[in-house]
């Protein structure tokens, strides 16, 4: 049997052969390449001189802004701010490029210069520039106007800009944390809802402490909080408006409702409803007040949390015997168990970045905070001890906040830890504190 290729087929066959040879040969004529793989993941040395005062009265705020930025970047663990005492050059004019040699000498890799000026209309103008010391390039520069009492907020926003430009990730400094403030003797703790900046400044109390409050959660709009309160009857889920101070009960259910959380769009609240000895997951639309059942099992299903795109949820269930973490579609349906380690897993929370789920793991007499990928692989314990609980992600998903109770006569306090497990830091609070929830970015 004969096979007759046309002339065109032969030519195209030859051409493709040539092409094949050509691509092989082309790569062979480059410059020599050297692969470099082992850098140090080390904090970046950065110099943050006090911001220049536009007028004499702005000196204090210029120093304050530099301090807040320094503190923010230092606490992140990714930057090593250089002590101002080591500075050789004093920045007096931010419009001219600095003498980079002076900053190279003290090993700074980045430099922040800025100026605070009180305007004629009473507002405060904040300007800053971020410089790359090695190349002498300006990496970013911005100016903001605000009323003078919000200078801290401006410092947080500038911190976010620096963080984002130097790490390639979104920042998280311009955010707040709601938590349960605890005061008084161990037997008669007064628990109040409190709100603060992520660095512990500007603490505000939202409730008086007459009733027990638990598990506060931010709405994406950051103006509303949902939480659980033990009032006169059963514990109920409440909605609280930070600005107006108004609060209302979410739904009107016969039994106990608990562990609420907002959906990413802020339109719905997902929570557990008690039904006899069991509890199931329900989602309620805040506008129409319609309620949808998501699970129907003879087990305790609780602590639901949405993925950032709202398509899936993770939750805790003891349907397999011990409490474990499951995921399922946000509209209900079959659930997949994703936690398989020793011990029991609870309080799952989906990272705003979508890559990890943080959890509390109990086993061997210890409570640990850990993260795993959303399919349950890559489990990593970030901290373990007598009692650690209630993880919540920073808006960029890089940092986890939780509370730790050392046991004994003391009380719990808040900590942050990087998702790599490094850089554990205590968050300053006025008294004992538990149940933190991190807000999304404010701007």
């Amino acid at each position, binding site marked *: *049997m*004969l*096979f*007759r*290729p*046309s*002339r065109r087929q032969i030519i195209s*066959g030859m051409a493709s*052969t040539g092409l*094949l*040879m050509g*691509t*092989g*040969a082309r*790569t*062979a*004529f*480059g*410059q*020599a*390449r*050297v*692969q*470099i*793989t*082992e*850098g*140090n*993941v*080390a*904090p*970046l040395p950065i110099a943050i001189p006090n911001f220049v005062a536009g007028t004499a009265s702005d000196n204090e705020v210029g120093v304050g802004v530099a301090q807040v930025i320094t503190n923010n970047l230092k606490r992140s663990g*990714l930057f090593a701010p250089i002590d101002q005492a080591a500075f050789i050059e004093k920045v007096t004019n931010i419009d001219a490029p600095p003498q980079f040699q002076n900053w190279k000498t003290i090993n700074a*890799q980045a430099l922040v210069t800025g100026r605070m000026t009180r305007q004629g209309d009473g507002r405060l103008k904040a300007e800053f520039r971020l410089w*790359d010391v*090695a*190349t002498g390039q300006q*990496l970013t520069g911005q100016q903001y106007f605000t009323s003078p009492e919000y200078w801290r907020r401006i410092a947080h926003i500038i911190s976010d800009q620096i963080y*984002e*430009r*130097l*790490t*390639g*990730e979104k920042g998280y400094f311009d955010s707040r944390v709601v938590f349960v403030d605890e005061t008084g003797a161990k037997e008669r703790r007064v628990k109040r809802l409190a709100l603060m900046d992520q660095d512990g400044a500007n603490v505000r109390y939202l409730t008086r402490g007459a009733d027990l409050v638990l598990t506060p959660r931010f709405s994406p709009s950051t103006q509303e909080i949902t939480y659980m309160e033990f009032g006169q009857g059963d514990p109920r889920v409440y909605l609280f408006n930070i600005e107006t101070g108004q609060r209302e009960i979410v739904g009107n259910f016969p039994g106990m409702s608990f562990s609420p959380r907002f959906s990413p769009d802020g339109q719905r609240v997902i929570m557990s409803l008690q039904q006899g000895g069991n509890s199931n997951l329900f989602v309620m639309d805040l506008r129409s007040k319609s309620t949808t059942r998501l699970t129907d099992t003879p087990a305790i299903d609780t602590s639901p949390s949405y993925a950032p795109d709202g398509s899936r949820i993770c939750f805790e269930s003891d349907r397999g015997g011990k409490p474990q973490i499951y995921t399922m579609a946000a509209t209900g349906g079959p659930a997949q168990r994703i936690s398989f380690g020793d011990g029991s897993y609870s309080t799952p929370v989906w990272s705003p970045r979508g*890559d990890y789920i943080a959890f509390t793991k109990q086993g061997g007499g210890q409570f640990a905070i850990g993260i795993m990928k959303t399919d349950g692989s890559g489990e990593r314990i970030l901290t373990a001890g007598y009692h650690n609980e209630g993880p919540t992600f920073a808006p960029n998903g*890089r940092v986890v906040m939780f509370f730790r109770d050392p046991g004994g006569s003391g009380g719990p306090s808040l900590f942050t830890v990087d*998702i*790599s497990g490094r850089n554990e830091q205590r968050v300053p609070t006025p008294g004992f504190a538990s149940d933190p929830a991190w807000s999304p970015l404010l701007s």
Partner: protein
Amino acid sequence: MKVDKTFAASVALHVLVIGWGLVSFSSKAFVSMPEDSLPVEIISADQLAKVTAGMKSGKKEVKTPLVEKVAEAKPIDDTVGKITEKAPVVTDTTPPPPPPTPVEKPVEKKPDPPKPVAESKPKEEPKPIEKKPDPPKVDPIAEALKKEEPKKPPPKPQAQAAATPPPTPPKPKPERTFDQSKIAALLDKRDPSRNAATGDTLNSNAALGLSKGKAADNSATWGAMFKSQVERCWKKPYGGIEAQMTEAIFSVKLKQDGSLETTPASISNPSTPYFRVYQESALRAIIECQPYKLPAAYFDEWKFFEPVFTERRS
């Protein structure tokens, strides 16, 4: 036009095999794989000849390479015995050690380390202790003390062991006085007991050598040297999950002294903020770490090359 089908199949198969060979064998040819720069070198006879050939910067008066000299270095004997030698501990409560035999005598006696078993018994008694470990070499400390309270030199250790009565309770020693002039006596005057056996002294005195002398001193490849130097300056950003596929390529031009001729140009184009930050961190490292110490013999190769900063593990 008629073509046999088997012939066509044969052509196709050949093309496939040759094409595959071209692609898979040629594409990696110029990538310098990461390798560690270790101080261990395997030197061939040819390289040894080059290394010992001499250097142009050598001193004129050294006429020939010194390697032959090293070959006939004095033998190192009895290193162990010498190193364990130890001055007896002198405290206020122990009686002064018997002064060693005079300097002239001992030298020949050195080699025999005393049998340990026999001497270990009388340990509780201070006297024998000093006798045993005392190789006849001069003990400077003891000598210094000897001058203070002269004693007749004791006979040979063995004999004395039997002869001496059990030690009497130590008589109070005279007050210690600090004499500046005796500080010198406390110095360890023993010969150094270790010598380098080989290697690093090979060409320490560079000779002018022969006309062909041209070798570089280090045969580790320059690529590994550059890598180890630039990595020390590179503070790479932490990128989490999405960092795994980043790669930044630069073209670098170096001057003869190892400093940058121009600012390195990046060949890759950053597509994400993290990639941009990654690339900037690498650029910062290249600039900060200059000048690079690279073997001058390979200057033609490293004056213009492309370092690849990558997270892809091959």
